[in-house]
């Protein structure tokens, strides 16, 4: 038996064909819900991640309620550092919003610049978290198994940190994909060379400065040298990724942006529920 032939009115067919021909990004919206499938999947994932972080946050708060006074978080926490981290993550969220806007405007150099800023700010946040954890473990003796507070605190903030690290990695993929395919083409874009220079040198400068400020802690120097060597290697090794960014990938950048904003949203809750509330 043959299936009944569905006839699409000519004008509608023309309109959809026309949309697909003029803007591939618009063509992706042609779903039964009117929302792009990738975006829909990301929102569903974020809804599930809300529940995931909800359980981690409630675990921490419940143990703080059941066993109060086990630790003195005011003695542990540095509100200056955490406040700075919050500022950094909020700014990265702002830059991510500008990244998505530039991607929609087909402004590739602008998108790259904002994306680079977002990644740098994400890396600064991660650096702050590594510093905080190292300080807690070495100076305060708080480990994953030293107390209930340590267990719930590290699991919650560590899970968030892993989310940030994955986000940085994801955004770095799109940054590399938006670069010219051939290394020879880099010379044609002076702003790009400047961006890459900042991306390469600024973390090294910050880490080397921290080495001198923080009593010659060798970890800062090693991290600085590590980034100085790693970044050119990443650029060279990303040959198959470079130049793959197309107009329709603006949606992928937007989806990555949703994930990044969610990470920021979770930090807004953690900042209040885990850090600020302890000062009351």
């Amino acid at each position, binding site marked *: 038996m043959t299936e009944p032939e569905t006839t699409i009115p000519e004008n509608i067919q023309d309109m959809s064909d026309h949309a697909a021909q003029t803007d591939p990004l618009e063509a992706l919206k042609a779903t039964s819900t009117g*929302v792009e499938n990738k975006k829909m999947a990301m*929102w*569903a994932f974020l809804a599930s991640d*809300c529940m995931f972080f909800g359980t981690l946050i409630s675990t921490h708060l419940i143990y703080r309620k059941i*066993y*109060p006074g086990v630790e003195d978080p005011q003695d542990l926490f540095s509100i200056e550092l955490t406040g700075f981290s919050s500022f950094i993550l*909020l700014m990265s969220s702002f830059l991510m919003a500008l990244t998505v806007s530039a991607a*929609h405007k087909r402004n590739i150099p602008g998108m790259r610049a904002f994306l680079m800023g977002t990644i740098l700010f994400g890396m600064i946040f991660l650096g702050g978290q590594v510093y905080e954890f190292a300080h807690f473990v070495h100076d305060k003796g708080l480990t994953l198994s030293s107390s209930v507070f340590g267990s719930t605190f590290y699991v919650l903030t560590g899970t968030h940190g892993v989310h940030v690290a994955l986000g940085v990695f994801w955004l770095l993929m799109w940054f590399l994909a938006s670069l010219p395919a051939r290394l020879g083409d880099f010379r044609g874009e002076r702003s790009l060379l400047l961006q890459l220079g900042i991306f390469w040198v600024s973390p090294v400068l910050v880490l080397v400065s921290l080495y001198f400020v923080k009593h010659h802690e060798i970890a800062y120097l090693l991290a600085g040298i590590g980034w100085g060597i790693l970044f050119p290697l990443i650029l060279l090794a990303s040959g198959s990724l470079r130049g793959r960014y197309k107009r329709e990938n603006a949606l992928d950048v937007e989806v990555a942006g949703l994930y990044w904003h969610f990470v920021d949203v979770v930090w807004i809750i953690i900042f*209040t529920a885990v850090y600020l509330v302890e000062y009351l």
Partner: protein
Amino acid sequence: MTERPAEHPEPAFDPHLKEEHAKYFTFFNVAMAMILITAVEIVIIYIPVHTVIVFSSLMVLSLVKFLAVIWWFMHLRWDRALCTILFMIGLFIATGTVTALMFLFEQDPSGSPL
């Protein structure tokens, strides 16, 4: 063959671009407001007023920041309502779970095992 409408705009004259330009100022204002709120949050914990007032203020301020990010930065304001509904389902279940669990447990008089 159907002819393309002549008035179809080129990307450079796309009204969509005008909307994106307007968004820039919205994003900037939201970001500045959130920095201000974060600063207020940090200051407010040192103000010697009743704990309940400070706690309530912190909850309200973090809620405002939360909503600002999802509404403007995550484009829920401009996207279809379906995205908002989908996210809110997860958010309500999570909030309900946290609230219920907080009321289920009481302080252990025997102290911490660790």
